[in-house]
């Protein structure tokens, strides 16, 4: 058994309560959501917060709903709920496809979308999904809340715009009628983090790509996205040639490093192959194939 360092604990009952507790317990206190990133790090003593502020019982952070033309996902929504949500399935296949490949049921029953975003692991799958769909997050502090685009959210590996005194409350995604979306991942084994993943959406209108989004993770894509590739595709027919050229632009912009999951050249190759596969299926889905 791996044993963490001594740690304090407080249970928050509301967002404002959680913010007050963060303030009270000071700089080295941390929010705990599903705990499936934070607690393993504590057990390995990579992280040693002085106190944990538990937001698992905060009702206002739960639930998936539609507001206007946006899907709103509460920060405490667990992977398993994202996986099985009919609202998400109706608008974007990418959620279900990505979630099926994130960790295993045990982790998915606890881990949350808010935790995934805030953990900001360079291999986080939901970061690619969020970047592909050009979503945003709502961040709450004692003085109010602000909305930050997900493509603007990450400050580097494991670093985000959420300050220690703040809480991420929502993740929001625009609804795009006619969009097809897909997610592709290569992992060494079921439940493993990605060697590389790519997620895309495509709206094909009058035979050309009217709108699209490309997200990538684990391959060193800046802000988990590929804007040059997206720009290239707009207004073009979704032919194999065009999709492949876009995927190549996406791969060219990646800067992966070698680790035990695979060498950099392979990851770069996957960035192309997986983007292409996701684009193909997204375009086909948008065209009702």
């Amino acid at each position: 058994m791996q044993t963490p360092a001594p740690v304090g604990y407080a249970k928050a009952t509301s967002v404002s309560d959680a913010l007050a507790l963060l303030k009270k317990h000071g700089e080295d206190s941390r929010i705990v959501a599903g705990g499936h990133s934070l607690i393993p790090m504590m057990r390995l003593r990579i992280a040693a917060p002085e106190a944990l502020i538990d937001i698992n019982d905060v009702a206002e952070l739960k639930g998936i709903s539609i507001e206007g033309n946006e899907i709103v996902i509460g920060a405490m929504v667990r992977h398993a709920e994202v996986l099985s949500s009919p609202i998400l399935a109706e608008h974007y296949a990418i959620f279900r496809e990505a979630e099926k490949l994130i960790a295993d049921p045990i982790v998915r029953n606890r881990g949350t979308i808010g935790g995934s975003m805030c953990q900001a692991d360079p291999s986080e799958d939901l970061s690619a999904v969020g970047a592909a769909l050009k979503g945003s997050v709502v961040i709450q502090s004692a003085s109010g809340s602000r909305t930050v685009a997900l493509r603007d959210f990450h400050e580097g590996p494991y670093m985000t715009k959420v300050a220690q005194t703040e809480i991420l409350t929502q993740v929001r995604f625009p609804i795009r009628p006619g969009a097809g979306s897909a997610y592709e991942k290569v992992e060494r084994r079921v439940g493993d983090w990605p060697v590389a993943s790519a997620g895309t959406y495509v709206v094909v209108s009058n035979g050309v790509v009217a709108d699209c989004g490309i997200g990538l993770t684990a391959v060193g894509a800046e802000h988990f996205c590929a804007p040059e590739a997206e720009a290239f595709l707009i207004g073009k027919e979704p032919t194999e040639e065009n999709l492949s050229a876009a995927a190549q632009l996406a791969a060219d912009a990646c800067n992966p490093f070698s680790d035990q999951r695979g060498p950099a050249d392979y990851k770069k190759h996957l960035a192309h192959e997986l983007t292409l596969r996701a684009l193909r299926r997204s375009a086909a889905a948008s065209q009702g194939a």
Partner: protein
Amino acid sequence: MTAVEEVPLSPAGNPIGFGSMKRVEDARFVRGQGNYVDDVNLPGMLHSAILRSPHAHARIVSIDKSAAEALPGVVLVITGEMLAGVPRPSLLGDNFAWMPTLSYDTQAVLATDKVRFQGQEVAFVIAESKYIARDALELIDVEYDVLDAVMDAKKAMDPDAPVIRDDKGQTDNSITDVHGNQSWESGNAEATAAAIAAAEADPNCVVVTEQILYPRVHPAPMETCGSVAELNPVTGQLTLYTTSQAPHAHRTVYAMVAGLPEQKIRVISPDIGGGFGNKVGVYPGYVLSIVGSLLTGKPVKWMEDRSENLMSTSFARDYHMKATIAATKEGKILAVDVDVLADHGAFNGVAQPTNYPAGFFHIFSGSYDYPNAHCKVTPVYTNKAPGGVAYACSFRITEAAYVIERVVDCLAAELQMDPAELRLKNLIASDKFPYMSPTGWEYDSGEYEKTMRLAMEIAGYDELRREQAEKRAKGEYMGIGISFFTEGVGAGPRKTMDILGLGMADGIELRVHPTGKAVLRLSVQSQGQAHETTFAQIVSHELGIPPEDIDVVHGDTDQTPFGLGTYGSRSTPVSGAAASVVARKVRERAKIVAAAALECSPDDLEWELGRWYVKGDKERGKTIQEIALLSHSALELPEGIEGHLDATAVYNPPNLTYPYGCYICVVDVDVLTGQVKVRRFIAVDDCGVRINPMIVEGQVHGGLADGIGMALMELIAFDEDGNCLGGSFMDYLLPTAMECPDYELGETVTPSPHHPIGAKGVGESATVGSPAAVVNAVIDAISPFGVRHADMPLTPANVWRAVQGRPMRTDMAVE
């Protein structure tokens, strides 16, 4: 499918004798009622944690433990320097800082001079709780002078390589065994070299050479290693609860290491959560818990965590093999030569019989009939964790089976011959048994072709090849891999096999109570093999007592007779035979008692399951239960007969048993991502007579998962700086149900002629046989890209690289 004869059922519905029945031990395991070492909590018990080296190779300049000692709840902080001051009245040295390994080398208990691998034991904290002990580790300040490390085994013998074992006065990183040898050879070097040279010169022959690595892997049992030591300061009695596959052997080793009188040592291995060879060796942690109890006067528990288990305890394999095979163009094998560089880590801690420093690797000539074979194994020290023979390997037969099955496929590729056809041409014919192999093994029995044809039939081999051709034409890549393996298990004949001088025969004891219920006392130690079930069935088969009336006691040296433990698939071949022999002794005693009761001569009696009766008068007889009570009664027995039925036996096996099998794996490979899907796995095992077919199948299932894991994902690699890259389950990947197909099992039964019930060991068959089948299947799938070999593990990256013509070197960090 089972070849077991129909046997009568007991009142509880169990077979009286052989047949499938539920595992007795599962009743407690599935209820969470098992009792593992970490469940042992003694009054006043203290806890502990080990400070480990962050460096692979460094000189210890100083250790400041004052802050740790000042932490409230810390009882004692032990360093190597302190251990060096604890006198040890022992055969093997004079203090506790170093201990002997199972290979006559020495290993640091706590480092005094240098650390030699990342994760090596540096200090031992004893505290009131595990948490405090762990917190205290952060307060110990060790100053290291970091040295260059030897991480690449191929560079270990470079003239400028840093010397690891300067403690022994070495000037290079060679390993010298107890016989004074620095490399180990088997077979006929000259004849093999001549045969290969002749083949090279002969236009009708081919010679194929391949570099084949079996990388370092780890047994990774679910339960990590640990112990609770209680050294009673008054009586001098040491009770050690420990995760051991070999409690008796461990007791003797402690007597030697600690200099304690052996009768004062009691080793208890309660339920063991998986071993796979990981729990054969004696680890510094065990010794430290004993020393801790000695110094504090209290029981001390040591239980390692997952990373400690993966980084510091017995690894397996790490064999760099160069194999050369010569054959005629018709596919008749002429000779095989294998040259091995063996990475043993920083201390030579390999567990194998003394006369077999490379284990049974030299059984590599495999299941084929050819005259010339030779191998040479050269071990080296590196800055990696010690160990070596572990992970269900039958003493390195895993490496042997892998290298021959891989190089035979390379030969098939060279000859453009179907690998099944090539194997069928060379399998040892049934009438050649007992077969003397070119490296000196006497294979006891086998009908190899029958087994292979059955596997091909279950697989639908010809249909698979047709499907493969069709798919290839469409640009889809499926592969079919075959492996035919032969193991030699059940070490072993005392004349040639011992560990640290302890001959590998097993004792056993059978008590039959007056009511006819029995208790069997075993030396071997189950780690999941279900000895409590299988051994009861053996006695049941011999005596006709229902298995539910037979309790099996194991895992406590005070309650069981001496024996060498469970590893190398030896429990059934050795202790299983002992169980049969001791039960037959009881049966013979019962005969005398029955004769006295029936007022006839023992010669007039005949045995049927559970009963002696008078020849020609079947009604006149006594059941074993009646006889048991009579043996305690006033019945007058012939002179010289003592009464009671209890008996003991020691079984010294005349030979190993030679289980074998044919495995066929079917995979689908996505060549654009390198992902491999194991679609089917067919396993036909011949382990002789099956005592409990369901348990045999369970053992095969587990071993196949092991094999798939090693072939596709398991790996302990190191970077140049000495960092272990497989130190947690995030990095050391084990297969899940998702990677394993529904296994398709088959069996043939060729009894061992020398084993009392014809059984052969099966615990490691699937681990030994399956990796080659998986790898052969993957290579077969991507062979259209000109790939003949790539090393395990065949991760997506490695497969993709192989397709690009650049397979990866897997023992070092991915570049």
